[in-house]
Each structure stands twice: as structure tokens, then as C-alpha cells.
């Protein structure tokens, strides 16, 4: 069992369509308006969901879906994962610059999860999972620093 394993199987067109819908719902009334969600690689195995500081866009990947890991990160739903990436984008707009190297990158990940946990569109389960994810990443930072 891998602790933090999220889904790796490429998304189906229907799953991608759902992600786009969820993204629109999250972004519509957000601070930066509707942002682009790039879906070109989402159907590929092991593709990643991430915010690109270079172009300000979020890229959809297979790991947007939860997986079988036992950590909070593995449990975070599609909407929770997209909220986490939106949080990265909003924090970037606010002037926060994410450290790219470990272990400090973990602090930014924890802060993004906490930021996302305040989003009104999320259910209480997502909110708790994001807070737990932040806690786990902070613990990892303490161990690694």
C-alpha cells in the first residue's frame, strides 16, 4: 500500500467533462474569474494535475481523482483537488511565490490546502480532507527540514 497514492489511470471523456464543469463552478465567483483548465493530457496514464506559474493555467491530470492510498491526500475528491490547484493560482495572484525545492515546497502545499479548505463550494468532507492534507504536509516538513 502506497500511503499517498492517487489515481493514475487516464481520465475518460466523461470524467474530463465533469472536471471542467467542477472547475467552472469553483472559478466562476473566484477572485480571478474563470481560469483556463488545460485538459490535453488528462487522458494519459500517470498524468499530473498542477498549476503552472509560467502561464497561470491549471493542467488536469489523472491524479485529480482520489486513489487507494491511506493518507488524506489520497482521499481528496476531484472537487477538493481542483480547489487545491485553484488555491495555488489565487495565492500566486496574491504575490506568494512557491518554493520549488523540498522541503519548503511542502509549506506551500500545506498553505494551498488550507486556503482551499475555506472555499464555499466544498462539502465538509472535502474541507476536512484538505485540512488533514495540510497537517500531513507540515508534519513531513518538520521531519525533512
Amino acid at each position, binding site marked *: 500500500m502506497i500511503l499517498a497514492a492517487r489515481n493514475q489511470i487516464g481520465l475518460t471523456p466523461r470524467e474530463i467533462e*465533469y472536471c471542467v*464543469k*467542477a472547475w*467552472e*463552478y*469553483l472559478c*466562476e*465567483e473566484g*477572485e*480571478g*474569474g474563470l481560469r483556463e483548465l488545460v485538459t490535453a493530457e488528462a487522458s494519459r496514464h500517470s498524468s499530473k494535475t498542477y498549476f503552472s506559474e509560467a502561464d*497561470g493555467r491549471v493542467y488536469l491530470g489523472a491524479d485529480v481523482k482520489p486513489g487507494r492510498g491511506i493518507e488524506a491526500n489520497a482521499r481528496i*475528491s476531484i*472537487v*477538493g483537488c481542483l480547489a487545491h490547484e485553484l488555491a495555488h493560482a*489565487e495565492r*500566486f*495572484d*496574491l*504575490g*506568494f511565490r512557491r518554493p520549488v525545492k523540498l522541503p519548503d515546497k511542502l509549506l506551500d502545499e500545506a498553505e494551498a490546502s488550507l486556503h482551499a*479548505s*475555506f*472555499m*464555499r*463550494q*466544498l*462539502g*465538509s*468532507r*472535502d*474541507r476536512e480532507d484538505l485540512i488533514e492534507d495540510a497537517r500531513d504536509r507540515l508534519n513531513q516538513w518538520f521531519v525533512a527540514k
Partner: protein
Amino acid sequence: MKIEPSGVIFTGACSIQTDRCRARESGTVSAVWASPGRLQIDVCAACLDEQMRSGDWEIQGAKIKGEPDVTVYSPNGKRQLVVEVQTNPSCRKPALEWAQKMRHNLLAHAGIPVSPYFMLALIPDYLYLWKESYPADPDRAPDYEIPLQEVLQPYLAHLALPPFRVGDKQMGEIIAAWLKEITAAQPSADASLQWLHGSGLYEALKDGSVEMQEKLAA
């Protein structure tokens, strides 16, 4: 009323239908549960936002989004200018330094909505205008410093009050009225308005609509 979002998002009609509703007949909505009784309500993002802002709905653990004092939208609904009104609590501090610190804090902590222009009205001295870039540089000096009395004098004269006696809310109303006038005005060769045309703000605001935090001003 306490509300619990389900986190489930789908296509449907919004049950709330505020003025800003984006799914009157069909659109992206999410199911929320109202307590007591866990009644399901389907709501679009705009109506969810409106219900939260009005205080009609409360979601445990969710942040209430701060709204700028005045916002100007282009005719196609894009946010063009965000205005924050603040009083310089100590006129002993240089206004420019205070304005830069204030914008830094607003960017870092309050989350100024992204827009091409940001204006900080610092009572009683100046209007500071930033042409925003992406991503925003929180420590950048303003692009324009405009004496507040110079542009708002007709409104202040009407109130018969010196600027330092005008409160934040009232100043917000004055600025909204002034901006409303700008959105409908013809181009002017007035030298005191050179900054308005030089910055591109006039073009950005032309025929736009002005909104205040609590009520529509235009």
C-alpha cells in the same frame, strides 16, 4: 440559515435565481443541503456567492469573500477597476508610503480581485492608481498620484465638508458617483485629467457600470 454543500456538481436549473443567477434554465449547479430537514437546494456559483454575502446562508468553515468598495465593469461585464477607500490614520506618515503598505497588505491578506486597474483612495490626500500586471507585484509604487481634492472638489463642495471629515463609506459613494460620470463622459482635453487618458483608464471604463460594495450605484 445554515447550509452544507454536498460538493456534487452537475447541470441543472438554479433554485435561487438571484439577479446574478447563471443557471436560470440550465447551467452548472451544485446541490447544498439546508438544515433542518436536509432539504436539497440546487444553486449556481453566483447565487451561492450572493446568498453568502447577504448573510442569508452560512456555511461552516467557509470564508466570506471580501468585496472591494467600488468596482467598475466594462459593458461586457469584465472587471476593469477596483477601488479601495481608506483613511490615512496618521497624516504624519507620508501618504505614498502608507498607500504602498496598504496595497501590499490588501494583496497579501485581503485578496484584491484581479483587474487591470487598482485605485486606492487615501483620505484625505490622494487617489493612487496602479496599472496592474500579472502577477501583481505587491511592492510596486503607484503609476499615478492624483490629488483627491482636484478631481472630487465638485462633490466635496456640495457636501461642504473638508476631505478629512468625510468617512470611508461616504467617500466610496462620492467616488462611485464620480466614476459613473467618467463612464458616461466624452473625452476631455482638461490637463488635470491627463492621467485618466494617459493611463488608458478612460477607455477601460467607457460605457461601463459602477458597483458599490453594498448597493448598485449605476
